[in-house]
């Protein structure tokens, strides 16, 4: 068998006013590597303002169905309270992202964080992810990093559909050939 690098969840913020969003995952050997791969996979186009990665196993996920039916709690050792980020999926609408940051809670374990999120943060939660804030590694905190990491994609307009405008006649106009 072969080597499989660990998996990292990728969190992206499109513009300063947008929420952080879970966009997918990449495999990488360490956090810096994960950030580089994440940029190649998820920031090939405009726009990004910030990018974070965290080890996939640092995330704890439950769905509404699992919450309703129970059996999702697992025995996790309690640790001193620490901040968790909470991501949620709120609708069944079409989307290209997994969860969206909805707030933070302070908790002693992932299960504890889920329980607090349900009490303290706005629902509905069709699915919910919690991750200790300390597990996140980021790029984009400084303007220099933002410029070198995210600006070049904006100049590559040939990646955009609009760059080609309307090519040829519209299919309706040429229906009968």
């Amino acid at each position: 068998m072969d080597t499989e690098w660990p998996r990292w969840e990728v969190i992206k913020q499109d513009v300063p006013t947008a929420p952080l969003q879970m966009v997918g995952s990449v495999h990488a050997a360490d956090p810096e590597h994960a950030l580089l791969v994440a940029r190649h996979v998820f920031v090939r186009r405009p726009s990004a303002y910030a990018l974070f990665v965290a080890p996939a196993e640092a995330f704890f996920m439950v769905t509404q169905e699992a919450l309703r039916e129970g059996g999702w709690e697992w025995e996790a050792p309690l640790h001193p309270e620490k901040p968790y980020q909470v991501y949620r999926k709120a609708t069944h609408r079409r989307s290209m992202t997994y969860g969206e940051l909805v707030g933070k809670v302070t908790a002693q374990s992932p299960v504890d964080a889920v329980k607090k999120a349900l009490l303290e943060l706005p629902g509905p939660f069709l699915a919910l992810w919690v991750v200790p804030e300390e597990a996140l590694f980021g790029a984009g905190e400084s303007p220099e990093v933002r410029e070198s990491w995210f600006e070049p994609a904006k100049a590559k307009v040939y990646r955009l559909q609009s760059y080609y405008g309307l090519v040829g006649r519209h299919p309706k106009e040429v229906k009968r050939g």
Partner: protein
Amino acid sequence: MVKLRIGHPEDPDYQERLEEFEARIARGEKIEPGDWMPAEYRRQLIRMISQHAHSEVVGMHPEGAWILRAPSFRRKLILLAKVQDEAGHGQYLYHAAETLGVTREEMLEALLSGRAKYSNIFNYPTLTWADVGIIGWLVDGMAIKNQTMLAQSSYGPYSRAMVRICAEETFHHKQGKEAVLLYAKGSRKQRQMVQDALNRWWWPTLMMAGPHDTDSPHTPLLLRWGIKTKTNDQIRQEFLNEHVPELLDAGLEIPDPHLRYDEKTGNWIHGPIPWDEFWKVIGGEGPMNRHRLETRRRVHEEGRWVREALEAYGRRRLAQAAD
């Protein structure tokens, strides 16, 4: 981490749960990892998503072959961006499959050992630069029809990967169309080149939508569970209705003597598809099957030292951090 909940027909509550599951899909709800799902739903998804991911990855080869020979710097940039996109699309899809508890390593192993399938279209060679245009317009055009349908899929992660892919793929389609229309209006040689590319890619493109519905055993179940939302023949028809008039308008000839427009339905009706060839190519007898897999295996082997070195480096860093 997420706990998967998989139902088997022998489970005492299977029937009841299956009904709830199907009702959820009928209401247009998305199934997320961690929701109850039939084992067969998971199996079909892993089969389809990984096959789809492999197609994106193998699909880089026929076009990648032309990056160094692109006729202009602009075309080279476009093609580079397109091939990078295919790599990214493979990643989105492997991730979607991983949410079902299969590892990327297992999926790659299935590809490299020849057990897993990928889209048959990539077993054909790209003989001239015009092929790059035709692939963009027609092959990606057919792919987009399929992907737009799959963006409605009942499995959340698959649908999300598809929405992201469709958003990016439309540029592939447009740049191909732009290139083909330019050649179709170009010199005699350019017109011949693009017509030749169309002649070779037409039938393989129509076959991309898959066998006719009557010969597609998985389809009814895939439709019932919302994994697919349209049949192979529906996708093929949509593709024809959009592309045939445009190709004819460009002055190109479609290599199907039976092709006709049906006034009553407003559909373009194609002649008999050479399925013998399809089954032959799927069975490994296509012009490029062996070459594609050999290339994948070789690049996988050649990259092994990089994967191992980075893994060792990552492990050492973790150990140092723990000290």
